[in-house]
């Protein structure tokens, strides 16, 4: 690695070294204030990714430093900074070790930004494992909590199996095509002749692993338990960053796919349709907000899968726009959950939310706004996101999927409105106040303004996305 390559990889190096520094300093001076230090490091990484011109276009044939990769470094760093800010009071009341928590989140951001920048199957594997490994720990971070331990174990066992599938799939693709590097690996697969079935088998294994990581049906069964057991700010990052980073890495992957796409089309169609249907039907009877959001995330992944399947720059732009709108709304929803949490009580069941709309009108309205945005009600950003995906599906010649997507969106109103009804249904005793803190309010206000502004005026973001698409 030359100095130029190191300079090009600077944002990720800042994140990794910053995480190590916080971890080491925290061993000598334990304090929860290190979480604020982590916020500064993440912002610093975002700044360096946004402002510095990379010296080389690709580092070590593994990671791109193009504007697409840089955009996602900025996005994941900002999301990570927001979830760190959300965690300040949460770590305080649950007595979580501050520097370790902060370092792990920074490592996770580093992994996500590496994954979104991957230009080689090896880079993809490394990035994916870097943050999955962190989440194994973060999900079970509340050590005394038996639900957290259960969630961590579930994610560990299933994640390890998925990793095996991914590694085996990549090795089969390599065996058939003779290259790990992305355009060449797929081009090699076309000329592979008798080895081509082997490459396709590799793709099948890779799709299983990807399906697990972003919880597409039928690989989604871990999602509700893990969402429920993990600490709320961690769930926020897991639901947005980890799934988003996988999709961000899939867009260039599928853009480079070429004629191979015809072979995968039916499988992708089935994954998208199954996710939309299974997620919707499973979300309907839920009476627990985290579980409901878990199943609804399966539906959202189905929408994103449609964007991936249709392909072309317009559909990919709609996918990225959807991804960003989903990320802000979901992070804000888990942010409200975090700010409602008290020492040994994190509200999840709908019964816990009864009447909170009168005690905490601002935060409850914000939760309602996030849920409505996820449901796709104008003028919030979720509407335009869904509109873009469905329009792309119709233009790309997938009317069947478009119909399923519209029906899923309609049905989703039921399960998104159910918690809102509970929030504002009846008065509640004022002794049950749940105080938040200003860091949480700041994050929530920021997410809310993003949801609203992007919904009213999406043009700048759409222009930006057009500019960065590979």
């Amino acid at each position, binding site marked *: 690695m030359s100095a130029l390559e190191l300079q090009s990889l600077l944002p990720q190096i800042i994140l990794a070294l910053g995480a*190590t520094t916080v*971890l*080491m300093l925290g*061993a*000598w001076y334990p304090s929860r204030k290190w979480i604020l230090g982590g916020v500064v490091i993440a912002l610093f990484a975002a700044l360096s990714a946004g402002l510095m011109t990379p010296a080389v276009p690709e580092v070590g044939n593994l990671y791109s430093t193009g504007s697409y990769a840089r955009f996602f470094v900025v996005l994941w760093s900002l999301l990570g900074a927001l979830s760190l800010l959300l965690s300040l009071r949460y770590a305080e009341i649950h007595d979580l070790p501050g520097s370790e928590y902060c370092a792990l989140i920074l490592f996770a951001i580093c992994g996500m930004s590496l994954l979104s920048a991957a230009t080689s199957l090896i880079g993809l594997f490394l990035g994916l494992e870097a943050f999955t490994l962190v989440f194994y720990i973060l999900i079970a971070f509340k050590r005394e909590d038996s639900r957290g331990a259960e969630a961590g174990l579930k994610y560990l066992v299933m994640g390890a199996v998925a990793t095996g599938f991914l590694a085996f799939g990549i090795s089969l693709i390599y065996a058939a095509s003779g290259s790990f590097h992305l355009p060449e690996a797929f081009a090699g697969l076309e000329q592979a002749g*008798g080895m081509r079935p082997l490459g396709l088998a590799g793709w099948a294994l890779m799709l299983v692993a990807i399906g697990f990581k972003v919880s597409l049906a039928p690989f989604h069964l871990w999602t509700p338990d893990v969402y429920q057991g993990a600490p709320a700010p961690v769930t926020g990052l897991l639901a947005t960053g980890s799934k988003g980073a996988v999709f961000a890495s899939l867009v260039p992957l599928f853009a480079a796919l070429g004629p191979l796409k015809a072979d995968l089309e039916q499988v992708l169609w089935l994954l998208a349709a199954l996710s939309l249907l299974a997620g919707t039907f499973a979300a309907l009877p839920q009476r627990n907000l985290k579980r409901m959001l878990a199943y609804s995330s399966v539906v959202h992944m189905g929408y994103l899968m449609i964007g991936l399947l249709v392909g072309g720059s317009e559909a990919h732009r709609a996918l990225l726009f959807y991804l960003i709108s989903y990320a802000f709304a979901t992070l804000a929803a888990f942010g409200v959950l975090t700010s409602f949490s008290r020492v040994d009580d994190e509200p999840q069941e709908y019964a816990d939310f009864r009447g909170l709309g009168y005690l905490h009108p601002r935060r409850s309205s914000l939760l309602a706004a996030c849920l409505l945005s996820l449901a796709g009600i104008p003028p919030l950003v979720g509407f335009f996101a869904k509109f873009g995906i469905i329009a792309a599906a119709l233009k790309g010649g997938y009317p069947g999927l478009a119909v399923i997507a519209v029906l899923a969106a309609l049905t989703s109103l039921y399960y998104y409105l159910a918690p809102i009804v509970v929030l504002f249904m009846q008065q509640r005793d004022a002794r049950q106040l749940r105080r938040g803190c200003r860091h949480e309010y700041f994050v929530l206000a920021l997410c809310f303004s993003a949801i609203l502004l992007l919904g009213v005026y999406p043009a700048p973001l759409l222009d930006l996305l057009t500019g960065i698409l590979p």
Partner: protein
Amino acid sequence: MLENYLPILVLVGIAFAFAVAVVILSRLVGPNKPNDIKLAPYECGMPLLSSARDRFSIKFYIVAVTFIVFDIEVAFLYPWAVVFKQLGWYGAVTMGIFLFVLIVGFVYEWKKGALEWE
């Protein structure tokens, strides 16, 4: 193309048949006179202390993890030392980064008191 793999398939078949045949033959033909000592698990000739299904202290786990990390470090160090001169500064710096990563982890572990037995 697949015909090339036929010998491997034949070999797999022979290996499987041989393994099964040996197990069955030794059960049929061999003498069978068990006693307590013969049935006990073999522990390098030592008398048995207790059942292996006991719960044991989490400290062993940390020691085992640390051992694996540094075991692999040494496994990397040997080939590196052999070609040290050919690799030159590039090899030295790369290995330095690798060692730095492991040492940071070790210092953290030490500071946190994971190595104290009591």
